[in-house]
């Protein structure tokens, strides 16, 4: 698994994808947080990082499918999938190695935003008047959310040999998981299941974490959602055996 992780991560670094992802993410978030007046912290007047955590998921919704779209689609198109699967490597190791590499890349893109926390911390009046617990909870939420997005992207990529198709499927799946279920629960048709539907979506748990309390139920939700998606990916990879 470690070997696959290294190969994938090196692949991101070699192929500009990593720089694109980090560059685009930081530019978008930086502009939204500090420059555009509608969402800027400076104009808002409160020492708060809400902008990062409310717009971050939407930026990731497009970026992560871009990272993961080639993971299996490209291997299948090039025929290297056959090469990998005839090596002494289990399907799980392959899926997990690739997932970890994508997630690690997102983590690297997220890490520099910790500087924003420092800035906001210094801007607070008095200095340090920030809801630190809320920010840290939100970071945990964002990090776990990107794990779900990465595994959804892996799943989409395992279905097709076409990267564009993989990207669109992944973006849609991420969107559905993020706000889709939340919106569905608001439909008058589904009042009986509204509570359940709401909890299937990511938003419910993400917001809960952002309040600064790391509730094990939310963590379990993110971990199991990632697990289910990776399991589906593994099943999709193994389906050649049927």
């Amino acid at each position: 698994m470690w070997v696959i992780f290294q190969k994938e991560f090196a692949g991101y670094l070699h192929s500009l994808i990593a720089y694109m992802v980090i560059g685009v993410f930081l530019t978008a978030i930086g502009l939204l947080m500090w420059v555009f007046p509608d969402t800027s912290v400076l104009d808002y007047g409160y020492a708060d990082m809400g902008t990062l955590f409310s717009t971050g998921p939407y930026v990731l919704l497009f970026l992560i499918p871009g990272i993961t779209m080639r993971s299996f689609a490209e291997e299948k198109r090039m025929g290297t999938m056959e090469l990998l699967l005839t090596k002494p490597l289990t399907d799980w190791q392959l899926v997990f190695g690739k997932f970890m590499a994508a997630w690690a890349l997102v983590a690297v893109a997220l890490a520099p935003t910790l500087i924003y926390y420092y800035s906001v911390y210094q801007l607070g009046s008095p200095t340090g008047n920030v809801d630190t617990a809320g920010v840290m909870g939100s970071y945990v939420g964002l990090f776990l959310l990107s794990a779900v997005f990465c595994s959804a992207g892996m799943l989409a990529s395992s279905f097709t040999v076409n990267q564009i198709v993989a990207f669109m499927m992944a973006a849609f799946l991420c969107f559905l998981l993020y706000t889709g279920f939340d919106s569905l629960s608001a439909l008058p048709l589904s009042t009986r299941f509204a509570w359940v539907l709401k909890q299937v979506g990511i938003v419910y748990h993400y917001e809960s974490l952002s309040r600064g309390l790391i509730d094990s139920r939310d963590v379990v939700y993110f971990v199991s959602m990632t697990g289910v998606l990776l399991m589906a990916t593994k099943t999709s990879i193994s389906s050649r055996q049927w």
Partner: protein
Amino acid sequence: MSLEVVNLTKVYGAQKAIEDVSFTLRKGEIAGFLGPNGAGKSTTMKIATGYVPPSQGQVRVNGMDVVRQRQQVKQTIGYLPEHNPLYTDMYVHEYLEFSGRLYGLKGASLRQRIAEMIELCGLPREQNKKIESLSKGYRQRVGLAQALLHDPSVLILDEPTTGLDPNQIFEIRKLIKEVSRNKTVIFSSHIMQEVQALCDRVIVINRGKIVADDLLARVLQRGQAVQTLLVEWASAVAVKDLESLNGVASVSENAPGAYVIVSQPGSDARQPIMQFTQAHGLTLLSLRQEENSLESVFKQLTRVEA
């Protein structure tokens, strides 16, 4: 037995890709797996490497079942897939290192193995290039180096020389011959000369079934090859007279006095031609036999039954 294929059947949808295929290879043996395109060569090889499971039957590599002991089997097999897929954006060295580490090689022993393979496969000048910049012949060498890196006891090569120019084919054949000394090797091909150049044993498959599995010489014998003779006399001869000779199937005239004579399967037309020459007091200028017996046997064995 190094490689045992027992009653292997693979069904894709309603179509049988291979049906009841069985053969065994002893340790150290090298065999050619011959058949026209779409005969089931690749399918058999994919099953043998554990990439796809059989519908029925089983494959054992060094006594281990490829379905139940897949991971152990993969460790002992070196595989070069058809079309030789490679990570073209990797460097040769990087790719071999990645491959070796997947087999659990590391550190000094991995470096030493890579150095040996680069030497063996003739890649010293290419080792620091990107794979995408290599010619097809060199890519094939990288593919072979990858298949040999972990010193497998069974080597499975799917059409290792397809798409190469004659010089490259010669080089790759030499390489296969060199590495096959203490390994069990099966390689597929649709060219009979290839088998002849590399080994004695040939397994012929057609439409998913084994049609011959024997020494090449014996397959040729049994195949009742057709002779094509180029005969030239000093003066013209009546085609009708030639056609009436024993063992002659057809005659065509190239020029007055020069004829192409095709024998009936399994019979030698040379003797009757000599007798005919003497009986009519003719002067024979030349009698030459075309070496096309390989193709004709291949055609016979893999004929699509109507």
